[in-house]
Each structure stands twice: as structure tokens, then as C-alpha cells.
């Protein structure tokens, strides 16, 4: 049994509880199908818990952190923060400006050579402009500051 699976089961029970609470706010006739699905998810999670207990008795408990062996928290969370800031900034700065800033920040953080940063930005921006702005005529966010 992996210790991390305990967290997985708790999250799944949490999801069931959350959807159950919301389902009970619906009219009676509309509750049946979601309730069946919630019961299915809760049942499968319980089955997994039983499996985990059996496995813990037979084989013992492992941390389950093997999949995180190569995990570099500082790199991952910085890049995730960059992505969130990029999305928050996009309505204000517009798609192109925020994308260039996001790419520059990410590539500088990952220590990519300057000429590679410039070249990759040019390629991506040109690709998006040709495919989405010219070909698909998508109106990408212009940004409050620039409109």
C-alpha cells in the first residue's frame, strides 16, 4: 500500500461529499442520476480502501513517493506561478505582450541561451499569429492597457 493513496481516497471522498451536498439542492427528479454516479464513485473509492488495507497487511506500507523522485519543487512551483501570473496578466497586457513576457521569464529561469530565447519566441509568436489571428481569425485578448 502506498501512503499517497490515503490522500487520493480522502480527495475522492471529499469530491463525493461536495457533489452530494450540491445534488441535494436540486429538484428531486434531477437528483437520481447524479446520486447514482456519486454512489458509484464512493463505492469504488471504498473498494480501493479495502484493497489498500489488504495490501498493507500482506505487503506493508510504502511512501508512494517514487514517482516524485525527480521532482524539483522550486522549478515546478516557480513555473506554475509563472503560468498563473501569465493568465492573470493576459486580460490587462493582451495575449502577445503577456506571452512574450511569460516565455522570456520561463526561459531565462530555465537558463536557456539568449539566442534560443529570441528564436523560440519569434517562432511561437509567428505560429500563433499566422494560425490563430490570420487563418482562424480568432480575436485574441488585446489587453485593457493597449485597447
Amino acid at each position: 500500500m502506498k501512503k499517497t493513496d490515503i490522500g487520493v481516497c480522502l480527495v475522492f471522498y471529499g469530491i463525493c461529499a461536495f457533489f452530494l451536498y450540491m445534488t441535494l439542492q436540486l429538484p428531486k427528479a434531477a437528483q437520481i442520476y447524479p446520486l447514482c454516479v456519486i454512489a458509484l464513485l464512493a463505492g469504488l473509492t471504498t473498494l480501493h480502501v479495502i484493497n489498500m488495507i489488504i495490501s498493507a497487511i500482506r505487503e506493508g506500507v510504502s511512501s508512494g513517493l517514487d514517482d516524485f523522485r525527480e521532482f524539483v519543487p522550486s522549478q515546478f512551483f516557480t513555473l506554475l506561478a509563472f503560468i498563473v501570473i501569465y493568465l492573470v496578466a493576459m486580460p490587462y497586457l493582451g495575449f502577445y505582450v503577456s506571452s512574450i513576457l511569460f516565455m522570456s521569464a520561463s526561459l531565462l529561469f530555465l537558463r536557456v541561451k539568449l539566442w534560443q530565447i529570441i528564436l523560440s519566441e519569434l517562432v511561437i509568436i509567428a505560429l500563433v499569429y499566422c494560425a490563430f489571428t490570420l487563418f482562424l481569425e480568432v480575436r485574441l485578448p488585446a489587453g485593457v492597457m493597449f485597447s
Partner: protein
Amino acid sequence: MSQTLSLMASGFVSALYPVNLLAMAGGVTIGIIIGCLPGLSAAMGVALLLPMTFSMEASTGMIMLGAIYCGAIFGGSISAILIHTPGTPASAATAIEGYQMTLKGQAGKALGTACIASFFGGLLSCISLYFFAPVLGQLAMKFGSPEYFWLSIFGLTIIAGVSSKSMIKGLMSGALGLLLSTIGMDPMQGVKRFMFGQASLYEGINVTCALIGLFSMSQALILAEAKIKQRARAAEFTDKMLLTGSELREIAPTIGRSWIIGNLIGILPGAGASIACFMGYNTARQFSKHKELFGHGSYEGVAGSEAANNAVTGGSLIPMLTLGIPGESVTAVLMGGLIIQGLTPGPNLFAGDTAKMTYTFFAGFVLIQFFMLGIGLLGCRGFAHIARLSDAILIPSVTILCVVGSFAIHQNFVDVVIMLIFGVIGWLARKFGLNNAAIVLALILGPIGEKGLRRSLLLSGGDPSILFSTPVCWVLIVLCVLGVLSPILMDRMAKGADKE
């Protein structure tokens, strides 16, 4: 019969339009690039480029996505042969013999064999697409609400098959997908369900956003979590890529056997190219006259693996196109492509005007193989350099394409947020042994099953016996049982392949 032949002929005429030829060339090139980049998968590539097909004709869009699919499956062999790192799991077996050939200075021959075997594997798989798909489509035309309910249940049992590590976790992922599929308007009562005040969730979670998030954004997060490593330098090669007549004759039976293996595995829901390549490779070794060369650079081994994984492509399209059941992740993404074109995957694709689109796609799928052969043979040297592209550049590039792709669906920022949420869900799912393909399958099949069940019960005045009222229902029930048992069969097949 004559109508089918005329549809086949008109399909080829339409597929030869310049715009379709351009889509094939572009799709195959993009697919090979994605395939040869270790860390990027065929499903991820197709999901990422799905929004590009919005404004295209349905047939052109599907041809482009099909071209990316085939290109990516072949592209994986380039990095497998030159840098001993399979670009996609489908080329894992190719790396065994392909890299040994590279070490012996025969990289060109290995790449040529991979290209030719991929071409014939893909081309032959089109035969089953042409012959089985319309027959199954005609059969599915007779389906009513109870049959559709069982069909969706059958599709959901596939989840057990696509869950490679833990069946229960796979089923839990599927149930989570089912729960997420209830978000939106209730199809019978007209009640808003779990919409969190977002009008954009009226029609439920946009499947394309979910696909981009689960397959592409999650991949960018996977790349972001590990230390960036320098990739090995691709081997330079000077030998000829084209095979001689006698070499071609020697690999012909191998290609034939791998075609049958790959095709059957493609049709089987839950299996995929990664299993097919090993089975094709093992069968090639069993029947080879030069068994001693295996493990030391056998081009028959390369041919066996590559013909099998490309033969999967045509076969895997059959259940998706005829029954609306995607058997694995790439076909689930392709199904998303059909849905955004306003088409319902299933028997309707073989009726009326839509049949012309379907046969144009079939013809396009045949022609794609020729483009794959040409572009593969001519561009291998160039693609080999692309295989070295650093993950550091891929992370922000893929993120930007995910953002712009999900925004382009409805030009709505909520879709981007949904995509990111699914990206994080997909990343967590992969880290904790859950299954993204199962979530997607349930997200797609959930509404079909719900409508089928509730309409059936409405028709029967609430009597559940309607669900067991026709022979087709019983056939589908048997298939559901087989669907649940299929993981055991797959497990045995995989173990058998490993042992050998």
C-alpha cells in the same frame, strides 16, 4: 454496394483537393516533429492542434488530425533509432534493434526500414477501415435508446482496459469523469446542475478544453517538474535509406504479420500501439530466418515493430467512427475533433451527406500514408535535429499553444481556466496512478449513457426491463462483460511479450 463504391470514388476525388493535400502534408510534418520529440505523445499533439481545425471543413480537419496521428506514431521511431529514446511509447520496441543498427553504422537503413514498414502497416490498416467500418455502421443504425445506453456502458468498461496499473484506480478515474460529465443542464428536466454561476457551463464541460488540459497542459507540467537534461546528440548517418529489392522481399512477410496483429489490437478497445509494437517485434523474431541478428541490429525487428504500431491507426478508428466509442486516448481526442465540427460519431457518419465526409476522410487516410513515406524518407535528417529540442523550450511553448487553443474555441477566457484546471487534474492523476484517458472516455460517454437511460425509462414508463428487451441489448451486455475481462487478457499478452 454500388453506392458504397461511388462514395469511395467520390471520397478519393474530394481527398485530392489541394486544401486536403496541404492538410495531409502539414499534418504529417507536424505529427513527425511531435512524435520524434521524447516527452510529447500522439494524443497530446492531436489535442494541442485540435483548435486549428475549427474553421476547416469537417473532412479537411479530420484529415489533418489523422495525419498528425499517423505522423506522430512514425515520428517516434526517429529518436528511438538515432538517440535510443523512443519519441512515443509506440516505438519502444523499435529502439531495441534500431539503435543497435545505428551503432553498426546502419542508421539510414534502420530509418528507411521504419519508414517503409510504417507506410505498409498504415496503408494495409486502411483495408479494414474500408471493409469493417461501413458494416458496423449499418448495424448501429438500428440502435435505439436502450442500445445506446448499453453501448455507452460498453465504452465505459473499456476504462478497465485502458487502466494499465490499477484497474480500480482506472475505474475511479472513469467515475470521476462521469461525475464531471453531469456538470451543465440536465438533459430531461432542464435544471442547471453544478454550474457555479457560469453560463458558459450550460452545455457542460467543453470536451476540447478538457482534452487539451488533460493531455497537453498536464504534459507541460510533467516536463516542468523534473530537472532539465541535455538530450543525447542524434547520430549522423551517411548510409542509404532505401532498401534493396531482396531486403524488401525479406521484410514483406513480417510486415504482413504485423499488419494483422496491429489491426486487431487497434480494433480491440483498450489496447494500443505500445502493445502492438512489442507483439509485432516478437512475432518478427519468432518467424525470422536470422534470429541471431535480433538484439544486435535486425532490420526485420524494426519492420515488425513499426508495421504493427502503424497498423493500429486504421483499426483504432473503427469503433470510434462506427459506434462512437473511442478505444484509447488518441481516438478520444479525434472524437473530440468530430464533435467540435458538429458531427456525432457513430452510425450517422455513414448516412446521407455526412457519409461523403467520412469517405473523404477514409481516402485521405490512405493518401496520408504516401505523404508519411515521402516526408519521412526525405526529412529524416532534419527531424533528427529537432529531436534534440530541449524540454526547457517545450514547456512555455506548449503552455502558450494550450492557452491559445482553448481560448480559440469560444473566444472565452473561462475555457482557458477550465483547460488549466484540467491540466492540473491531469498532472495529479498521472502522479497518483489515476488515468487521464479514463476521465476523457467517461466525460464523452457520460452524456450519451445518461440520455439513453433516461429516454428508455421515459418510453417504458419507468420499467427497467426495456433495457433487456432486444437481442442487440444482450449482445452489448456480453460485450460489456468481455470489456471488463479484457484487462486480464491484455495483461497476459503484455507479460507474454515481455517474457519473450
